[in-house]
């Protein structure tokens, strides 16, 4: 627990808050990237180099850009006149608050049981690679299958649209 | 094959880049303020007025006939005819331009004034370094700024100037002969008839003759 942690945590939370609260959707998307960056830095703080960089590469490099593209393609950046929150926003907020209360209570309750500092594990990319193709080869294959399915699905959706416009 | 054309193009630019260090053909830049390309003889930019002799005011060939003013397509010449006559470079009394302005901010360098001038008085200059930040003062040339000597004319358009000189000399010879004849005739007349017109008028006559073409186009212009 040091200053760096607090700064990063603050960055992440503020980014997240901005991402859900701001009116302009593009601003939301950019705030989201701030939250992603904060999280990635938290990963680095946790000595998970590979996961951190993967987080930046995938989330900032791809997901955030995709979101931005989607916003532009759907003209979602225009703020509707009758508010940006749905009419059931109160219920949603209540649910979220309840969830946070439960989670927070659980974390604080179990705090004494949680382990303290341990030595930073040294994880090389080599190890990750070996683990991926060794112990975790099945999940890897499944994820690969999933990604392929997603790819094919996306392509089919796009092609379908094209035919329709013609 | 894909990429072949691209490689050809790359080779071409490389040849030019390398060539620019060795051959003058491939490095065509003329570093302007220090070195300048010689202007061809026919080159033209803005008109100027030729004067003979040394005194520009006296030697202007222009007799303010206003043909160029009428013919100028963009109407950038302004001439005020003098009321009186002054002797020109050859001592003949002549109408002269009291005012001769050319607005070079309008002039289109077409050379039509030169073509129509019957007195070889207006010619094209090659001077092009005229840029200025003074909108009116710098771009409205008056008589004094326009007047350039015949020597200068010889310098910039040597062939043309010599032709013009020869032509003028021939005309002068003709005019002199005529004048002499006229004077002779007048003298004879005077001798014949005791009451003679004033000889000065007779002497001035050739000039009026030379002026004659001016009268015609003036009527045409409008």
């Amino acid at each position: 627990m040091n200053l760096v942690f607090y700064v990063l945590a603050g960055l992440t939370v503020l980014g997240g808050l901005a991402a859900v609260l701001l009116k302009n959707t593009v601003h939301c998307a950019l705030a989201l990237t701030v939250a992603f960056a904060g999280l990635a830095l938290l990963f680095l703080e946790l000595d998970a180099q590979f996961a951190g960089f993967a987080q930046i590469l995938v989330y900032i490099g791809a997901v955030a850009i995709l979101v931005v593209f989607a916003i532009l393609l759907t003209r979602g950046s225009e703020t509707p006149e009758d508010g940006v929150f749905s009419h059931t926003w109160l219920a949603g907020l209540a649910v979220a608050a309840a969830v946070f209360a439960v989670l927070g209570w659980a974390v604080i309750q179990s705090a004494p049981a949680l382990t303290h500092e341990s030595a930073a594990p040294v994880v090389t990319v080599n190890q990750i690679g070996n683990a991926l193709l060794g112990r975790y080869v099945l999940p890897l294959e499944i994820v690969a299958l999933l990604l392929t399915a997603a790819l094919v699905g996306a392509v089919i959706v796009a092609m379908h649209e094209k035919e329709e416009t013609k | 094959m894909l990429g072949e054309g691209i490689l050809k193009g790359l080779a071409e630019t490389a040849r030019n880049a390398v060539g620019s260090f060795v051959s003058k053909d491939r490095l065509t830049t003329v570093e302007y303020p220090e070195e300048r390309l010689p202007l061809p003889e026919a080159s033209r930019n803005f008109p100027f007025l030729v004067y003979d002799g040394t005194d520009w005011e006296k030697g202007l060939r222009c007799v303010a006939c206003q043909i160029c003013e009428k013919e100028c397509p963009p109407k950038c010449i302004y001439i005020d005819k003098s009321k009186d006559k002054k002797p020109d470079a050859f001592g003949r009394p002549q109408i002269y331009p009291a005012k001769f302005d050319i607005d070079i901010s309008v002039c289109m360098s077409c050379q039509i004034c030169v073509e129509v001038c019957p007195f070889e008085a207006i010619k094209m200059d090659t001077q092009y370094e005229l840029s200025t930040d003074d909108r009116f003062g710098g771009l409205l040339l008056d008589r004094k700024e326009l007047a350039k000597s015949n020597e200068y004319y010889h310098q910039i358009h040597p062939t043309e100037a010599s032709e013009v000189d020869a032509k003028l000399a021939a005309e002068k010879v003709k005019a002199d002969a005529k004048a002499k004849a006229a004077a002779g005739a007048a003298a004879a007349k005077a001798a014949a008839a005791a009451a003679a017109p004033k000889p000065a008028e007779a002497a001035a006559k050739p000039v009026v003759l030379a002026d004659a073409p001016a009268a015609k186009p003036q009527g045409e212009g409008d």
Partner: protein
Amino acid sequence: MEEGLKIELGKQGVFVTTIEELYNWGRKNSVWPMQFGLACCAIEMIATTMARYDLARFGAEVFRPSPRQADLMIISGTVTKKMAPQVVRLYNQMAEPRYVIAMGACAISGGPFKQGYNVLKGIDRYIPVDVHIPGCPPRPEALLQAFMTLQKKIEEQPLTGEGRPRHLDAEAQGEFPVPVQGEHDLEPTSNKLVWPLPVVIR
């Protein structure tokens, strides 16, 4: 700084300069023109940037298509009444310090076409012009010479006091009103602040 002292220091290998000189040197040597051609003179302007005349030697070949990044607007050709509002708008979009060269007769006064119903009789009716080049079209050398005239003008500008450049003058006009295309003519027919009625010579 005194000139004498400066020369003396220069002799001893110490080069002294003032902020003013450095600033003027910088902007003088990096005048990026806007990629903006109007008519015949534009071809000569292009010819000036080409191999034989090579405007690049003065560091000015960076023709920026966007007015935001350009320093110099070369009005190369006839400005028609239909085009004039756009020219003024473009000038307004340029960032200070900005300069204008009126290239050729048409840009200065309407030139040979000035009697026409759709031709603006000189762009300096609406925007301030720094250098005028007469000619129809001016030779590329004339444009180079005008460019050097402009550089000289920049170099000699004091940064404070009388005669300081417009962008350092808080009271100077920054944006110029864009004329409106009316039913018969542009309205107004000139910007009286830029183009006061000249003193009549005759």
